[in-house]
């Protein structure tokens, strides 16, 4: 199936389900299945939900979760919020970024790993914390950085 056909079939499912305010769940679903929301999805969504392309684009660009490009193979979301800072988060951020060779908020050029900021994971008494792909990791120290790096480079 082409990407466009795949997107269209997801959209059709949503239109038939008659869900009110379907745009966010639909965008989540497209991203879940394809990894990102291809720009080509915008007019298809606009047509199906009877809203303008500008509205669809406005929503995609408002919410940080939605990507318009394919993600790196591994994504590390490191918490930058206060409780993790109180437990040495800033030093861990610098060390992790150095170790992986990628700046906070960016994907590495080889597409292997991206380091993204997140503002709290709700694990605030056991920081510094991160989500490594879909796995929560707590109490990150230098040794943990080594393990995380090993995992995402593999």
């Amino acid at each position, binding site marked *: 199936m082409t990407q466009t056909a795949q997107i269209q079939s997801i959209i059709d499912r949503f239109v038939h389900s008659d869900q009110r305010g379907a745009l966010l769940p639909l965008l989540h679903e497209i991203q879940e299945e394809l990894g990102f929301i291809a720009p080509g999805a915008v007019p298809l969504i606009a047509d199906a939900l009877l809203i303008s392309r500008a509205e669809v684009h406005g929503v995609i660009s408002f919410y940080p979760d939605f990507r318009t490009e394919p993600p790196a193979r591994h994504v590390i979301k490191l918490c930058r919020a206060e409780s993790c800072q109180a437990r040495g988060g800033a030093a861990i951020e610098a060390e992790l970024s150095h170790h992986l060779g990628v700046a906070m908020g960016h994907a590495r050029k080889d597409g292997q790993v991206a380091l993204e900021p997140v503002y709290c*994971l709700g694990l605030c008494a056991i920081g510094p914390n991160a989500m490594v792909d879909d796995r929560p990791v707590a109490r990150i120290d230098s040794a943990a950085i080594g393990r995380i790096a090993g995992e995402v480079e593999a």
Partner: protein
Amino acid sequence: MMRIFVSKDMASVALGADSLAEAFASAGCEVVRTGSRGLFAIEPLAEVETDEGRIAYGPVGPNDVSAVLDGSHPARIGRIEDHPFFSGQQRFTFARCGVTDPLSLSDYAAHGGWKGLETALGLSPQAVVDAVKASGLRGRGGAGFPTGIKWQTVLDAAADEKFIICNADEGDSGTFADRMLIEGDPFCLIEGMAIASHAVGASHGYIYIRSEYPSAIAAMREAIARSATKIAPFTLEVRVGAGTYVCGEETALLESIEGKRGEVRAKPPLPAVEGLFGRPTVINNVLSLAAVPFILAEGAQAYAEVGFGRSRGTMPVQIAGNVKNGGLYEIGFGVTLGELVNQIGGGTASGRPVRAVQVGGPLGAYFPPSMFHLPFDYEAFAEAGGLIGHAGITVFDDTVDMAHMARFAMEFCAVESCGKCTPCRIGSTRGTELIDRIVAKAPRAAGTLETLPQMRNARTAARSHEEEIDLLRDLCDTMKHGSLCALGGFTPYPVLSALDHFPEDFGSGHALTEAAE
């Protein structure tokens, strides 16, 4: 077969609970996955069912399994209820969390579940609203608005359709009670929402959970599926956020569910009158709704008896950051900040002195230890220039740079601003730049525009350090009074409290609190 209880709360899993549970299963035990008890220093925690009750061991890992099973392990805690972190708590809302299998309907019913809903269904909607009013319950999401009054407005509104929305966006750093409750006792929230639907006449409800909480989303969806017949004809649906903080603001949340950008709406109209899709809508925090089953089951009086001043009932306080005994501690209002940080929290994890605590998330004030006498109470905190918010306490030791934290507050506001109003959208960026100049001791000099000869009245001298500080206070004043919502409006709390209590970090004289003594 031995029965072992191991939490599958996201925090427990982050600390290794999954491999512990697997090790017990491989050793031939029946493993029950529960929510977290709420003290992370003893996790991963294993509880062994015995004739004397559940005996806890923690922290333990997969290699400790045999020593736990033969009772010889040195990390033996005994009964959790007797542990000092738990014996002083008043668990009204979190009574089942850590005890039961969160998705077991029979566990839920066996531990007092559905009693509140059954009571409510035997009462008129007005009587239910009256009970919630009499309990004194105030919104746990931050603003502390009386829940019963909000419900009354929705009950009184005539409409063909009404909604119940649970705000589980929990974006505040230092908070995790909503997440723990949804993962550890989701039926309690469902019961609270079902009671609300009966009270105001709503047919459908939404639970808006932030995307950062994947385990909570999965638990909630499963719990809704399992309890659908129990709450029918009322129906529930999970909606997932998409990485914004501002969508926790109630009107931005409405926009988000409607499928729009999460921009804050001007009030009035209140959501209780014109909310989701223009219909009267109850929107409450997880903890507000989850407190309701207790109130209906045990009586409003039982809830209202506990508390302090106009803050009635219990608060699940979250002790976080650089603290030894971090976790969730549910207790009646009135406990002091110092008791929470020092006695219960045990001081810092680093062993260094406590220098500051931030109460109420990124929009809450920083307090020095000289203010630890403050009782946990909405009014007392407001009077002291702060807020209790969602009751997260973030502890910092003496290595913290408070000018840096003030800058972070401005930066966070700039990152998360919905952009609808100028004081927040522009003010936060200017504030970040201003604090950078203050810290660098590089006050702003006259720019190209001011030095044009035709700008006859423009000032050409550079600002002094004091003038930059005055300007920061001025900017905070503008944000406080000119912002549409509390993101721009309360960002001045962390900034000004840092400046007032820790001026030395901004290169200025002594703290106000010291000067006043």
